C-alpha cells in the first residue's frame, strides 16, 4: 500500500520522506530511495496524480538562454564587456551585440557601458561549461540610469512579475515608479523617494509571502493602505489559489519580460546567432579573466 506523507503545497526539506510505496513517481526536487520518495531540495511540494515534485523556494540563479536579466559591468575587454549576472557565472557582452550602432575598433567602450553600470540584457547563449553570452540589442534592453538595485530571491521573480506582468504593473501604476525585474533576481526601481520605499516594501512582502494563498489580494490591500490610493487592476490577475506555483516550475515557457514604464520604440533585434545544440562547438573566443 502506498502512502502519501505530505499534503499538497506543504513545504518539504531535504531528506524528508514524502511518500512510501512504489505507486508514486519522483520528479524534480524528489528522488526514490528503496520504497520511499524523499525530498532533495527545499521547496513546495506539488502532487500531480502519481508524480511528486518540488517547486524550489531558495537557491541562486543559473543563466538560461533567452532569460532577460539585469547585470553589472565588471570589466571592459578588448571586444566587449564582462558582466556580473548574480550567478556563479559572469557573462560576456560582445561588441556586435551591444548596440545597433556600428562600434568601430578602438572606440572608447565606456561611452556605451562603463564599469559598474547596470544593464538590462538578454542571454543569447550558455555553453555546457556555463560560458554566457548576452545581448543588449532588442526591445527594452538597455543601460539603466539612476534608480536603485534590489536583490530578490530568483525563485520569487515569477510571483513579483505576476501573470502577464499583472503584479508588477499594479506596483508600477500605484507608486508611479519605473520597475524592471530581471530573471536573475535583480530588480531596478526608480521613482519618487517615498514611492520607491513603498515599492521596495511591497516587493519584499511578495518575496516573503508568495507561498501564502491570496497573494494578489493581500498585496493590493497593502498597496492601498500604504499609498492611500485605490488600486485598479487593469490586466488579468493571476489566480491566487489554483496553479499559483505553476509558472515558476522548472523550465517554463519564455517568461514575461517587464517593460519599463516609458519605453522608447526600438526596432526588434535580429535573431541572435546560436550554435546548434546537438554539436557543441568549442569556444575559441578568449574570455577575459576577472583577476
Amino acid at each position, binding site marked *: 500500500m502506498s502512502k502519501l506523507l505530505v499534503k499538497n503545497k506543504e513545504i518539504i526539506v531535504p531528506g524528508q520522506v514524502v511518500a512510501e510505496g512504489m505507486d508514486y513517481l519522483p520528479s524534480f526536487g524528489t528522488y526514490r530511495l528503496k520504497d520511499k520518495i524523499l525530498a532533495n531540495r527545499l521547496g513546495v511540494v506539488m502532487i500531480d496524480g502519481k508524480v511528486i515534485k518540488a517547486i524550489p523556494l531558495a537557491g541562486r540563479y543559473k543563466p538560461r538562454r533567452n532569460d532577460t536579466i539585469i547585470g553589472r559591468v565588471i570589466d571592459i575587454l578588448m571586444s566587449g564587456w564582462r558582466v556580473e549576472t548574480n550567478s556563479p557565472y559572469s557573462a560576456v557582452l560582445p561588441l556586435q551585440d551591444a548596440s545597433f550602432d556600428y562600434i568601430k575598433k578602438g572606440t572608447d567602450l565606456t561611452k556605451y557601458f562603463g564599469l559598474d553600470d547596470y544593464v538590462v540584457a538578454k542571454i543569447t547563449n550558455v555553453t555546457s561549461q556555463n560560458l554566457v553570452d548576452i545581448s543588449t540589442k532588442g526591445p527594452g534592453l538597455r543601460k539603466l*540610469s539612476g534608480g536603485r*538595485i534590489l536583490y530578490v530571491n530568483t525563485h520569487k521573480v515569477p510571483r513579483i512579475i505576476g501573470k502577464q506582468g499583472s503584479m508588477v504593473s499594479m506596483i508600477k501604476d500605484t507608486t508611479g515608479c519605473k520597475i524592471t525585474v530581471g530573471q536573475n533576481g535583480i530588480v531596478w526601481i*526608480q521613482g519618487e*523617494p517615498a514611492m520607491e520605499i513603498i515599492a521596495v516594501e511591497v516587493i519584499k512582502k511578495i518575496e516573503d509571502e508568495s507561498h501564502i494563498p491570496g497573494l494578489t489580494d493581500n498585496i493590493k490591500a497593502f498597496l492601498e493602505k500604504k499609498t492611500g490610493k485605490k488600486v485598479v487592476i487593469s490586466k488579468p490577475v493571476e489566480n491566487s489559489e489554483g496553479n499559483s506555483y505553476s509558472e515558476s516550475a522548472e523550465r517554463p515557457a519564455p517568461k514575461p519580460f517587464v517593460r519599463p514604464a516609458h519605453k522608447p520604440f526600438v526596432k526588434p533585434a535580429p535573431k541572435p546567432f546560436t550554435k546548434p545544440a546537438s554539436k557543441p562547438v568549442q569556444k575559441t573566443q578568449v574570455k577575459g579573466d576577472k583577476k
Partner: protein
Amino acid sequence: MNEEFKEHITKSLTQNMRLDGRKNDEFRKITIETGVSKTAEGSARVICGDTEVMAGVKLALGTPYPDTPNDGVLSTNTELLPMSNPNYESGPPKIESIEIARVIDRGIREGKAMDTKKLCVEAGEKVWMVSLDVIPINMDGNLLDLGALACMAALKNAKFPEVKDGKADYKHLSKKGLPLLETPIEVTVVKIGENFIVDPTEDEESVLDSRLTVAVLESGNLCALQKGGDKPLTAEEVDKMVELAIKKSKELRKLL
C-alpha cells in the same frame, strides 16, 4: 561604485529621506543583549537593522608593560568574518578591520572607560589583561558605532574569574565587575553630497564622501576622533557633524 546610484541616494537625502525610509539623522532600531556567550567573561550582542555584531571580553593574568608596571592591559580586535558579508574574504586582517578595532580602542582608552590601575594585581609582576573582540555576524553597515556600543555593553557585563593559587579559575566567576569609570559612545556622521547622515547602511557607506567618528563622554566632551573618506571637510562641517554626533550619543547612551 556607481556614480548614478550615488546621485540617486543624494537626491533622496536632500528630501531628508533615506533609501530605507529613515530620516537623515535617524538610527535603525537597536536592541542590546548581554551575556550572550557563557565562555566569555563578558559579552554582548547589538542588533541594528540588519547589522548584528557581537563583542566578547576575555580576562587573563599577565605581565604588565615595563613602562606601565601598575596598569592593566587593554587590547581590542576586530575580525570581519567572511560569514557576515559576501564581500569579506578569509585571510589576515585588512585595513578596514584594523581601523575599526583601533578607533573603538581609542574611544575606550582615551575616554578612560576603565581604571587600569585597578587591574593591577602585583605591581610590575601581574596585572589583568583585558581582551575585547568585536565580531560581526551580519554586516550591513555602521560596524564602528555598533561595535563600540557592543564593547561597552560587554565590558559592563564582564565579571572577573576567581583567582586560585595566583591563577585565574575560569570555571568560577566572581561577582566583581570591571573597574569602569566612563562610558564613551561613538557616533559616526557620514557626509554624502551636502547631506549628513548617521548609522549608514552598507549601500550608503559605499557612496560616502567623508565621515567623522566622534567618541563622546557623558559630560559632552570628546575623547577620540577619526575622519575617513576621500573628500575633505570644512571647519563648519566638522562643527555640524560633532554637534549631530553629540545629540545622537545621548540616545545611544540610554540603551546601555
